[in-house]
């Protein structure tokens, strides 16, 4: 039994509930326990930096401080949370002046952070700690001839990621372990537009279009994601992309945990909760 | 016949070994008194300070002064004798360079007093009595000398004519010097007498093998190989940094030189000279390695200034 502190982040409690359910089920299946961080607060994501820098480090330091008491690695399934927390970790080391201020702030809240917490992404934990082999052993329903475009997105791999910042490979290794076929997906770490989908939607849609076009060009049955925001942009807004550009993409988008749940033969994959309906191959696997 | 030579001997802060060393000349002391009157030697005959005070200045021809300046008595008698004698000889390591008493300079006086009179395991002193300069007794006030915080050399309180190192000086050297005195054949004022002017290695018969030091041992830890340089065997021997004249007696006893004759040649600090030589000899190519080897070189200051603390460049510990 491996145990980790778990930082769900706001999305997994709202728009990305299927991510959380599949994540926890898969964790269970792999004998991993995720203990939800007690009374965690929002990581601040990208928006907070745009208003207050020291503050955004301070609030994410609160989470780190709470986690440090537990002495466990802190796992974030959302790439934005993952980056937000890691960035604070790095900056507190790199910039003493910032650390002084943040320490002061924490003290005001009766907290202290020594800097010992390791921030991990859920994918990292599964592939590196549990291991590809263990995952392969757990597969019950191999994803035969399912062509998967592994989309790592940006913030999971940059600038502090565990996978290559330019050409990430971990998702492809996972796909292979699940019996699927990774397609060469050169835009694997290209940005989906993130929160632009709300503030500058046309821009975000244009970015998503590039990703979808590439995936389609590579004949992918499904795009697998590691971040709620990527997922929302590619899945929920796929229709808007088609509307905007007169395209007709219909590529299902699933979280990597959903793909694992499927291959493990678990009951709840939550794939049905995704907006874009499953492609024939995927549907077949879900049925069979 | 010419007037007899007048000699004086005095014992300040020292162990008394020097006095015994003088007696080492044995029957020859009878030859000595043929030509010289001993007019002051408290250790051997009953002289009073007042007898000396009564003497006209320059009355004594030669005073052999042993012991360091540790308290006000040492200093006042040093001044008195300087006034009453023509030639003042700093006799023995304590007078020349501070000697063993000067090791006290590595500590604060209070801590030494506490250790000596109250703390030490063998002390029973419930009242916690410690020496005090003034003390009242039924007969009235008695005064004790004031102990100084810093132990100094004779030359630090009065001008000294000759320096005769050694702890103690060898009887051979003593006799030679006495003869020189009697014959009036002393070298120019300020010289060292009764010793050589090279280092102990000059008189040491041990062989060198040109090896580097891999690790250090304290003398009690190993039985060093006879005939082979102790320094090369990892025992801190100060011979190379110490003035010759003792005929390397310690080394004949298979023990390292402790440096009682003081710095050799042009060196102005015996301790630094020793560390420089020893440090250059260790087999290290990185600071880490050097630290690791030197870890077994215990108490450097106490080792390289065992006799020369008052004579060293830094003289004593000063806490920042």
């Amino acid at each position, binding site marked *: 039994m491996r145990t980790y502190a778990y930082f769900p982040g706001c999305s997994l409690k709202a728009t990305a509930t299927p991510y959380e359910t599949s994540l926890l089920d898969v964790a269970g299946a792999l004998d991993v326990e995720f203990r939800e961080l007690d009374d965690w607060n929002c990581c601040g994501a990208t928006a907070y930096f745009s208003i207050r820098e020291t503050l955004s480090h301070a609030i994410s330091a609160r989470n780190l401080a709470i986690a440090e008491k537990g002495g466990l690695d802190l796992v974030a399934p959302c790439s934005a949370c993952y980056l937000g927390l890691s960035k604070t970790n790095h900056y507190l080391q790199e910039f003493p002046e910032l650390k002084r201020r943040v320490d002061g702030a924490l003290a005001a809240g009766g907290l202290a952070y020594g800097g010992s917490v390791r921030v991990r992404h859920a994918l990292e934990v599964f592939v590196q700690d549990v291991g590809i082999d263990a995952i392969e052993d757990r597969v019950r329903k191999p994803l035969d001839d399912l062509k998967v475009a592994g989309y790592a997105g940006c913030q999971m791999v940059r600038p502090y990621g565990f996978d290559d910042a330019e050409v990430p490979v971990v998702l492809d290794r996972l796909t292979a372990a699940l019996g699927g076929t990774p397609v060469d997906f050169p835009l694997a770490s290209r940005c989906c537009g993130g929160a632009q989908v709300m503030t500058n939607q046309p821009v975000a849609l244009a970015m998503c279009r590039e990703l979808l076009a590439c995936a389609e060009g590579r004949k992918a049955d499904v795009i697998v994601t590691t971040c709620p925001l990527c997922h929302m942009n590619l899945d929920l807004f796929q229709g808007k992309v088609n509307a905007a550009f007169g395209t007709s993409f219909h590529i299902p988008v699933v979280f990597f945990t959903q793909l694992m749940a499927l291959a493990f033969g678990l009951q709840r994959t939550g794939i049905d909760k995704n907006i874009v309906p499953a492609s024939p191959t995927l549907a077949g696997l879900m049925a069979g | 016949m010419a007037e007899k030579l007048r000699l004086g001997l005095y014992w300040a802060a020292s162990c008394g070994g020097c006095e015994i060393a003088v007696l080492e000349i044995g029957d020859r002391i009878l030859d000595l008194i043929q030509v010289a009157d001993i007019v002051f030697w408290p250790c051997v005959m009953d002289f009073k300070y007042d007898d000396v005070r009564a003497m006209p200045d320059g009355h004594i021809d030669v005073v052999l002064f042993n012991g360091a300046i540790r308290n006000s008595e040492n200093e006042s008698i040093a001044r008195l004798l300087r006034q009453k004698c023509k030639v003042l000889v700093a006799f023995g390591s304590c007078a020349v360079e501070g000697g063993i008493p000067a090791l006290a300079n590595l500590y604060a006086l209070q801590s030494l007093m506490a250790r000596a009179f109250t703390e030490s395991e063998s002390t029973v002193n419930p009242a916690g009595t410690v020496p005090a300069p003034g003390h009242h007794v039924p007969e009235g006030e008695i005064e004790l000398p004031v102990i100084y915080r810093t132990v100094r050399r004779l030359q630090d309180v009065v001008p000294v004519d000759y320096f005769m190192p050694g702890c103690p000086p060898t009887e051979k050297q003593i006799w030679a010097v006495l003869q020189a005195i009697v014959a009036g054949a002393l070298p120019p004022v300020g010289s060292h007498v009764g010793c050589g002017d090279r280092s102990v290695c000059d008189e040491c018969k041990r062989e060198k093998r040109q090896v580097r030091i891999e690790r250090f041992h304290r003398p009690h830890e190993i039985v060093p190989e006879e005939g082979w340089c102790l320094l090369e065997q990892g025992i801190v021997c100060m011979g190379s940094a110490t003035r010759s004249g003792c005929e390397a007696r310690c080394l004949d006893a298979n023990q390292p030189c402790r440096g009682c004759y003081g710095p050799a040649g042009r060196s102005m600090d015996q301790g*630094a000279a020793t560390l*420089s030589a020893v440090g250059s000899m*260790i087999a290290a190519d990185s600071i880490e390695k050097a630290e690791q080897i030197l870890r077994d070189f215990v108490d*450097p200051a106490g080792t390289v200034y065992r006799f020369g603390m008052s004579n060293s460049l830094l003289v*004593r*510990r000063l806490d920042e």
Partner: protein
Amino acid sequence: MSDFEPRIVAFLCSWCSYTGADLAGTSRKKYRSNIIPIRVMCSGRVDPEWILKAFRDGADGVLVCGCHPGDCHYINGNHKTLGRYPVVRRMLAQFGIHPDRYRLEWVSAAEGDRYAKVVDAMIDTVRALGPLRWKDRLAAATDTLADARS
């Protein structure tokens, strides 16, 4: 101790460190003026006697710089220097002199920037430690008959 300006003596080997210090100048790196160099051919020439003398006669810090181990112009002169270093520091500590007042640093002929940094760091350290004033404090800790009588 803010107004205290330490005096630091630096012994620099001619081939690496003195050249490096010159390079700091040639490339106009700025560092504070509390340090005055003495040039020797090799750091191995630096006699611990000089270091003690410097402290006794008014230096607040002593810096010795040589070629990086392995790069000595005289093959291994700096090995002798580093062999003396730890024991001298330990002895200084026994005399109550903070070991950080004496530093050994490797500065190559190309490390002008590093020399400037080393010097400023050394000055900061020594400034924090305060003045050494060895002679005055030694005199103050030495009693005389006069003291005894009073």
